[in-house]
């Protein structure tokens, strides 16, 4: 129990003193995860919309595949991206291994299935409710999709937040493709793993508390934005 209290106080002192090293890794974690979620949304939202709103052969199988990919072990994704980016791999010439870009690529792969599956779910429900109405208005296919996505925009933040949660908390993949290099690719999770390995469990745990606080902050910001937008919308 003592250890837990110690970790808690250490976490507070780390945050209060604005430790430089801590700021650096928090900033890198946020930058990478938000970028990855952004890219994953750009790919996953349209994909989710297509899966929800159109009917084509193989759609069910694609749905199942995406659901399975939500459970993709990060270490496997890490190895996959490593083999692609390694100097001996197909994209080796780009020299991307052990850079933040490599970590973003791994995170994008991890986040896309989550974003796709959630947006498909949200849009499918709306579609069942409104599609007849939209059809009766004689709206074009493209108009119908954009109208539904627009209408679902608040629910779709959930997709982004779930994806962010996966990206920011993941350690296996970014450890392999980033290499946990100090001042370059060290993020919150790999720093926690490193401190735990050094036997500094208090430090590891307090970094964990800081990570939770950062995640809470991101969620609060997202919540505030959607709530105020909803209110403006209602008016």
């Amino acid at each position, binding site marked *: 129990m003592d250890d837990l209290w110690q970790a808690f106080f250490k976490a507070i002192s780390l945050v209060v003193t604005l430790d430089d090293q801590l700021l650096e890794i928090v900033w890198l974690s946020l930058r990478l995860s938000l970028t990855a979620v952004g890219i994953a949304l*750009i790919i996953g939202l349209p994909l989710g919309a297509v899966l929800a709103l159109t009917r084509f052969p193989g759609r069910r199988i694609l749905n199942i595949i995406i659901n399975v990919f939500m459970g993709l072990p990060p270490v496997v994704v890490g190895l996959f991206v490593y083999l692609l980016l*390694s*100097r001996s*791999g197909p994209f080796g*010439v780009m020299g991307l291994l052990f850079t933040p870009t490599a970590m973003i690529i791994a995170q994008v792969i991890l986040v896309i299935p989550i974003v796709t599956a959630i947006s498909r779910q949200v849009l499918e429900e709306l579609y069942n409710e409104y599609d007849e109405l939209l059809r009766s208005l004689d709206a074009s296919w493209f108009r119908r999709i954009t109208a539904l996505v627009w209408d679902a925009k608040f629910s779709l933040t959930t997709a982004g937040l779930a994806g962010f949660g996966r990206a920011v908390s993941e350690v296996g993949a970014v450890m392999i493709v980033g290499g946990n290099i100090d001042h370059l690719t060290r993020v919150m999770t790999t720093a926690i793993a490193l401190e*735990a390995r050094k*036997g500094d469990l208090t430090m590891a745990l307090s970094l964990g508390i800081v990570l939770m606080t950062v995640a809470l902050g991101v969620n609060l910001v997202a919540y505030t934005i959607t709530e105020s937008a909803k209110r403006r919308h209602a008016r």
Partner: protein
Amino acid sequence: MLKNKFHLIISTLVLAFTLGSIKYANAESIILASTTSTQNSGLFDHILPAFTKETGITVNVVAVGTGAALKLARNGDADVLMVHHKTSEEKFVKDGFGVERFDLMHNDFVLVGPDNDPADIKSANSVVTALQQIEKQKTPFLSRGDDSGTNKRELELWHEASFDPKAVSGDWYRETGSGMGATLNTAVAMQGYALTDRATWLSYKNKQNMQVLFEGDKRLFNQYGIIIVNQNKHPHVKRKEANSFVDWLLSSKGQSLIASYKVAGEQLFTPDALK
């Protein structure tokens, strides 16, 4: 509208990739594949800033087990290799992946365990007898099990003790498949023995009732070598920067900096290049 969206997508992607690449593009840097034991000991934080200040070259350390580090370097994913298993290092050079191997520094391995020492290895006259006593008592022994330098050495020692621990793996011989620190964490929790390099042990912070129980056998010598990855195999290797790093480490300046690294008043590594 569609065209606008397309532009948005492209510019976001470009932005993401530039954000990701800013930091390594504008600075000279090399990648050093090394072991968890050297990283966990804190040695790099002690010596690398001095080198970067002097030459402007950043050394990016990727710390994995010796086996994994050799594999990384074979794939061309590192410029310099610093590991501790001489036989594998010499094979690496012989296979043409490394230019030349230099003795860099050494320390030693020790056997650690709970202070009540159930197998009484304190009284053993060699590391081989110590291991035989552990085997007789069937006290938990925690192995790295990760093909690291420490793991390779441990298996060689078991071999000398004429015992095949893999046969009882999962019984009292337990392979963690993780780094040195993680294995020590497990040994502490299971109150078992473990073989560790002295540097990791001294800087390790979760010792609880564990202590060094056997040391001093010459079989426990632990040497680190340094090798530049061969440009003939991997043309993108930053030969010039790698050379200046290795030259600096082997110079009197680098060597004395290694010698000056202490944890709790104890020197962790003895430099080997100046003899």
